[in-house]
């Protein structure tokens, strides 16, 4: 059964315009969305927490400000859903983990502050694979999220709740985080736009860390224009994140209507069915259709090899768990979250971690601890970091001849709940097309481009060079026009 209805009450740009002009109140917009959530959330389970009262108060404040003649923000009255690994002061933030259940952060993530400063209204905290580790949102300690297009299927992950919330029309926009594909893969499976910006383009302050050299926050929306708008709101230097790129947000909305005439588009050979196995035929057919559409619009399309991308998966499953094992050491039952009984501090630390973390998080911590342990560090972690350099160099070579690259975002359409939970490696393969961009730090996004043999959504991934978001959005906008 499908309960999908993207932009059920208009997209973010349209809502902001109506609220800014006074044609519609933020209160009415929020009530519409809360009613839709009340009707279908039981089926979808996109949220860990619906912030109904907070949303109504925030909407009233936006309406009062506009009535008082204040300049409306760029997202005035736009409901947004926030992945539950981003801190919201005084509002529970769980990472879908028992170890943080009930925790109320004493500060708010920069991205959330920036959305709210532009009049956006957080309506809830969305479900995820525990600590963002997974590709189906089945690893949540609070139950799986369902794909709004088919409630027997997964929404992808780890930002499955944020993708599903937008696909179900619970909010026109949401935020996710992407460490190995956790925005782009669920965007593909849920038929929405999902963007992983250049590493450092968006502040990670208040994002609970998974893989610090890989993590990046980005938007889910129903249109490329909305994604550009959210990007421009959340991106830019932040003194609270010393790893953020020290420059203002790129003007990604500026070329959405420019077309692609003369742009050079390269299909990544390794992901076009020839080298990396397991990409389904209908996904490859949509990739070809997207390339044809860009060629018809005047782009110069060719294939290009990015050879070391085939080593992305093994390298990622050393780097990401290694960083995770270090980042998650802070969850020890001392300062926040779950504490289990222990007769001494060390026993309490171990009992708390053992009771608080789910199986996949334990697997990743174990893997990372192993990869960093004496005698193995050079063979695993060190080699993986060298592969990051190789992948970056290969991408850079490709970008000498191409403006953007094209690939699938996910190897398949949405799969059945429970289908891939038995073998972790099978689940990890879902990220084979998205991981290389996290290792290199380059931007990439998934744009809906038709459906598969099963009638479920398929996204095409547009990849761009470092800080190449403007041309990435330009090409994505053309795909949106061609796909419509």
């Amino acid at each position: 059964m499908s309960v999908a209805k993207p932009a059920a009450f208009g997209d973010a740009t349209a809502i902001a315009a109506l609220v800014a002009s006074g044609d519609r109140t933020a209160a009415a917009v929020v009530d519409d969305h809360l009613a839709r959530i009340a009707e279908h959330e039981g089926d979808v389970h996109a949220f860990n927490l619906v912030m109904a009262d907070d949303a109504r108060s925030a909407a009233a404040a936006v309406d009062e400000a506009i009535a008082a003649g204040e300049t409306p923000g760029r997202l005035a009255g736009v409901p947004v859903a926030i992945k539950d690994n981003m801190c919201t002061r005084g509002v529970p933030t769980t990472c879908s983990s028992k170890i943080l259940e009930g925790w109320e952060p004493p500060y708010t993530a920069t991205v959330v502050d920036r959305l709210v400063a532009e009049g956006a209204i957080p309506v809830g905290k969305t479900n995820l694979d525990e600590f963002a580790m997974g590709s189906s949102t089945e690893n949540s300690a609070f139950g799986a999220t369902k794909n709004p297009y088919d409630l027997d299927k997964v929404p992808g992950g780890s930002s499955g709740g944020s993708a599903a919330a937008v696909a179900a029309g619970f909010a026109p926009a949401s935020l996710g985080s992407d460490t190995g594909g956790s925005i782009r893969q669920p965007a593909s499976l849920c038929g929405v736009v999902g963007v992983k910006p250049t590493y450092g383009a968006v502040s990670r302050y208040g994002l609970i860390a998974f893989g610090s050299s890989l993590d990046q926050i980005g938007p889910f929306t129903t249109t490329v224009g909305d994604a550009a708008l959210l990007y421009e709101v959340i991106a830019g230097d932040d003194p609270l994140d010393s790893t953020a790129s020290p420059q203002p947000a790129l003007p990604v909305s500026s070329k959405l209507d420019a077309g692609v005439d003369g742009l050079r588009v390269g299909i990544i050979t390794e992901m076009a069915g020839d080298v990396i196995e397991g990409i389904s035929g209908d996904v490859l057919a949509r990739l070809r259709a997207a390339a044809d559409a860009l060629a018809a619009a005047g782009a110069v399309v060719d294939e290009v090899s990015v050879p070391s991308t085939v080593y992305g998966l093994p390298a990622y499953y050393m780097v990401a768990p290694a960083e995770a094992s270090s980042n998650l050491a802070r969850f020890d039952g001392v300062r926040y979250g779950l504490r289990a009984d222990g007769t001494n501090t060390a026993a309490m630390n171990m009992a708390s971690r053992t009771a608080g973390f789910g199986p996949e998080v334990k697997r990743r911590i174990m893997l990372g601890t192993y990869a960093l342990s004496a005698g193995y560090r050079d063979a695993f972690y060190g080699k993986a970091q060298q592969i990051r350099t190789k992948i970056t160099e290969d991408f850079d070579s490709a970008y000498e001849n191409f403006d953007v690259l094209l690939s699938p975002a996910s190897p398949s359409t949405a799969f059945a709940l429970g289908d891939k939970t038995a073998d972790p490696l099978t689940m990890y393969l879902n990220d084979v097309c998205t991981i290389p961009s996290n290792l290199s730090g380059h931007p990439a996004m998934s744009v809906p481009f038709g459906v598969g043999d099963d009638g479920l959504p398929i996204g095409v991934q547009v990849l761009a060079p470092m800080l190449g978001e403007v041309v990435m959005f330009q090409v994505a906008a053309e795909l949106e026009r061609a796909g419509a």
Partner: protein
Amino acid sequence: MAEPDSQPALSRDEVAHVAKLALLDLTEEEIDLFTVQLGSVIETAHDMNNLDLEGVQPTHHPLGLTNVVREDVVRPSIDRAEVLSQAPDVEDDRFKVPPALGED
């Protein structure tokens, strides 16, 4: 790291040792399961040996930023009472834990 195919990528003892390092108390069943599951991931990681990486510099961070500093000025920080309100146990404005030494 080339190993004969017959030898498992990861031994049960190694898994038990790593669990201890990671402060995780795994059951016997979990150790068995993780030995197989993590072993298959580590086997895949051996694919990295197929690539010639001689002389390739490692990437630690995509942007390669160094020495990011701010002006040394006093500014407000997170409220202490708010932080402590979220702690499992507190005494006199401090986090409280069980004794550092004691029976296991």
